């Protein structure tokens, strides 16, 4: 049977409890950050290579201060991937404000490493179980979006409902899931 949480979740919890072995694990995980930043930079060519260490440092800090928001649905590295992306956006936002230069992302540029889309059955089973726990129309939208890879616009068209409604269900589905998964690896969060 698939565990409801990825094994990385236990490691993050151990790190937050201050266990020494988990600190070694965490350091090993964070080695992904400079590599992810270097990958993501291809999407934002106006970021200079000499700025990447600063962005990686910021991403590392952000990750360490937001560990409680890792829900354990995916490998920790997948969560770090989004943290790096957000850090890169934050950096470009700040730089753009300071220098009034165009630092927008290039949507045509190569972006992330290739996806192991269908390879991780365990991941899909875990996600399916988490989504089904919230039930209702919101769960259907989340499944179609994340397990079938469909755009909300397509979902609205195929079901014959307004796009606004689908957007709202999607948002509410994420909020419900966030609520249900609220207890982060630090033991904090909302009651499930």
């Amino acid at each position, binding site marked *: 049977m698939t565990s409801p949480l990825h094994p990385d979740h236990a490691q993050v919890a151990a790190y*937050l*409890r201050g266990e020494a072995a988990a*600190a070694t694990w965490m350091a090993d995980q964070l080695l992904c950050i400079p590599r992810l930043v270097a990958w993501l930079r291809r999407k934002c060519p106006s970021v200079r290579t000499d*700025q990447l260490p600063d962005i990686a440092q910021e991403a590392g800090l952000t990750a360490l201060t937001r560990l409680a928001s890792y829900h354990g649905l995916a490998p920790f590295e997948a969560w770090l991937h989004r943290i790096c992306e*957000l850090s890169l*956006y934050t950096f*470009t936002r700040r730089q753009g404000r300071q220098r009034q230069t165009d630092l927008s992302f290039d949507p045509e540029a190569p972006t992330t490493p290739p996806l192991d889309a269908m390879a991780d059955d365990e991941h899909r089973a875990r996600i399916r179980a988490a989504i089904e726990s919230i039930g209702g129309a919101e769960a259907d939208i989340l499944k179609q979006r994340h397990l079938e890879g469909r755009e909300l616009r397509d979902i609205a068209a195929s079901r014959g409902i307004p796009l606004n409604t689908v*957007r709202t269900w999607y948002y509410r589905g*994420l909020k419900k899931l966030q609520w249900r998964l609220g207890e982060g690896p630090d033991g904090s969060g909302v009651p499930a």
Partner: protein
Amino acid sequence: MNPPRDELDPVDPMLERLLAGELGLDDPTVRDRMQQDPDFAAEAEALLTLAAELDPPPKSVRGEPEPWAGADRAMVELVQQHRKPVVPIAGHRRRWPWLVAMAAALVVAALMLWPRGEKLPEIDGSLYLQNCMVSPRGEVQRGSLVTTGFDWSSLGATPGTTYKIELTDEKGRTLSIGLPATTGDLSLPLTQTQVDALPSKFRWMLISSNDYSPSRRCSTDVVLLP
């Protein structure tokens, strides 16, 4: 159990479109909103991060070579510096209350008996930041300092806090490069002239005028690479 209705409403149209992928984080309206509305930014980032966990996991980058010299070492040091104190977990709480009390007593005694050494600078009877998650730190390119300046935005300061930055060289001598006496910002840009005036190794200390955190001091060593 699902969240109460007031946790879900009102729905924010921009947040919905951002989550739907119809707006990007690089969209100017989103950028402005995230800059001006920290609650919106926090919620957007939390939900985007959750959505990322739902997506198929990206292929691991572990096999990639170190993208720049020192990248791995910087991450290891970051974790070492960020080690959290042990957080008691349910079921183990108050297991050794006498040990905690004894340790606290020893700390108090040590503080009382410890010889007073270097007098720490103060502003407005301030405390000193202990969490040194600031930049620059460690080895950085000299040229990048003009862009980044001193930045302590990750400390999560409360409004109204003012800061003072002190610079010293390797031998502890105070450096003066024309920094303002205090600032209310979360970063301090540097001019090319100021960067040129910095030695290749220096220490900068960030001092807060506000006791918003259990802070003491934030002293960070920097090595400027040519």
